């Protein structure tokens, strides 16, 4: 009787999402009354067995194969399907990162089983499981039932669970496993990487200064750039701005853009549509600058200034420079 957790890593570098996965797994496994086993696939996986044990894994399945050096959704999906065949877990879960959801979808497609993505809470039952999951990127929740004869397949929404230290380490028995992979699965394995300069990214910035349609033009963003630079932050934008071609999509905050979690989010000229809000709501504090006191962004913000952003933003920059003697 087990819950199998598919962990993620990049050539032996533990993914932060694994801590969330194991935290969620502890609750679910306790509710199911089963032990937690984990699956680690590919090069470098063996090096992570200690971490998996510390996080509470009873059995650490380490799957390796010459084809599994780099990520490939079909090869990894097929590997886990074979592991499920060998270990017969009652449920298989991951965190709903881009890879996590794709791997579980691959397993579900191969086994023709239902798969519930981005769960918030899961209540196991003898027949149907009752699940609450994320729709609309978090703007809406769905209560759903999961009924299947096979193992239950699910992911927890990324950041839906706050990672906590394991209550106790697991036995961490390492079981190595070599899947039988057809050479044709190489068709979806990474052939190259194009790694760019990291630096402060939108998702990790401690300050995000964002502009919406109210900024009025691509040039209007220069004021936001200046303020963001001064604060060591990044410029963000709304989808209206991306669609107008004023900013690149990499700057977009929201459901179909980036989720941010800065110390402070300065949202200027943004109305605060629900699809924008879900990307910004994890910010510690929100300051809205808008001419409309009724705008959703203003109503939901911690602080607001009801005025023209083109007057307020340069004034903030000037005040910072004045205080710093710049």
């Amino acid at each position, binding site marked *: 009787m087990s819950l199998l957790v598919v962990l993620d890593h990049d050539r032996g570098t533990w993914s932060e999402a694994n801590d969330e996965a194991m935290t969620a797994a502890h609750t679910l496994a306790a509710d199911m009354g089963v032990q937690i086993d984990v699956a680690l696939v590919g090069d470098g996986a063996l090096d992570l067995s200690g971490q998996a044990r510390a996080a509470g894994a009873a059995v650490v399945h380490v799957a390796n194969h010459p084809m599994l050096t780099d990520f490939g959704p079909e090869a990894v999906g097929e590997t886990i399907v074979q592991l499920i065949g060998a270990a017969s877990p009652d449920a298989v879960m991951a965190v709903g990162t*881009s890879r996590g*959801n794709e791997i579980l979808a691959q397993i*579900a497609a191969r086994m023709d089983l239902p798969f519930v993505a981005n769960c918030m809470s899961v209540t196991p039952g003898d027949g149907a499981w009752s699940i609450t999951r994320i729709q609309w990127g978090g703007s809406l929740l*769905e209560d759903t039932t999961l009924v299947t004869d096979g193992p239950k397949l699910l992911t927890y929404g990324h950041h839906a669970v706050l990672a906590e230290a394991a209550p106790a380490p697991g036995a961490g028995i390492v079981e190595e496993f070599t899947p039988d992979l057809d050479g044709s699965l190489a068709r979806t394995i990474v052939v190259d990487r194009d790694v760019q300069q990291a630096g402060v990214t939108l998702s990790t910035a401690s300050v995000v200064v964002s502009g919406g349609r109210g900024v009025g033009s691509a040039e209007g963003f220069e004021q936001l750039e200046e303020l963001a630079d001064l604060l060591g932050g990044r410029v963000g934008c709304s989808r209206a701005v991306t669609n107008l071609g004023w900013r690149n999509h990499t700057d977009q905050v929201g459901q179909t853009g980036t989720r941010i979690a800065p110390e402070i989010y300065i949202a200027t000229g943004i109305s605060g549509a629900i699809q924008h809000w879900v990307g910004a709501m994890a910010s510690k504090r929100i300051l809205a600058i808008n001419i409309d006191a009724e705008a959703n962004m203003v109503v939901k913000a911690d*602080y607001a200034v009801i005025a023209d952003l083109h007057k307020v933003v340069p004034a903030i920059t000037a005040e910072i420079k004045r205080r710093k003697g710049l």
Partner: protein
Amino acid sequence: MNILVCVKRVPAPGSKINVTSDGMAVDAAHLGFTTSPHEECALEEAVQITERDGGQVTVLTLGPVEAEEQLRYAASVGAHKIILVPTDGSAWDPQRTASALTEAIQTAEEANNQPFELILFGNESADSGGFQVGVRVAHKLGRPIVNAIKGIDPSDCAVTARREIDAGFEVYNVPTPAVLGVKEGINLPRYPTMKGRLASKKAELTNAEITAKAGGQTLVRLHRPAEQASNTEILGTDESAAVAIVDILEEIGVC
């Protein structure tokens, strides 16, 4: 290259999403509808590829008869053929949707006497966001699929696809016929021209009646997440608020 794009009709809510009293759907009484954003970009990509290299774009949707609106829109921005799998308007679960789409694709391919060299999905649908329909369809068709794609470069017998990761891109070289899950940002979708709008009225709509059995995931009820009550502190109504703002920035240690 002949390309098929699967798009979904979704409501376009504003500042909050309301749910119907039975909890089974988004209350769209006062809302417009749109195409899920990732899929809008998938369509734009398909149109750009065929404009460059030749071929045709077919767009397929499963939904209520009103989804014809999204198909006509697709035709107005460059799709050549449009196919509707009509439903009674209720939400279909991912397994059921995937079975029906697969059958519709197989029927279209038989009529064309050849497979679509490329089938594009969105990475996830904007409303239900199941992250799986494309993967299920690809598997049923026995074709490769990679998700989260933000760059497509077709060549003979293969497509080079770029997947966004934290520090850059992963590159895949996928043999055709292939399936890809596309993300917004791969391109900037065009707006329809007057000429496109007129042409879209003439585009021939194929109806594909398909029955598929329900899968193991059943919708019980939709509801809004609990909202934290917020007490917005108004710092001012003109640029003199800058002083109070910089006080806050200093207090939280970002300035």
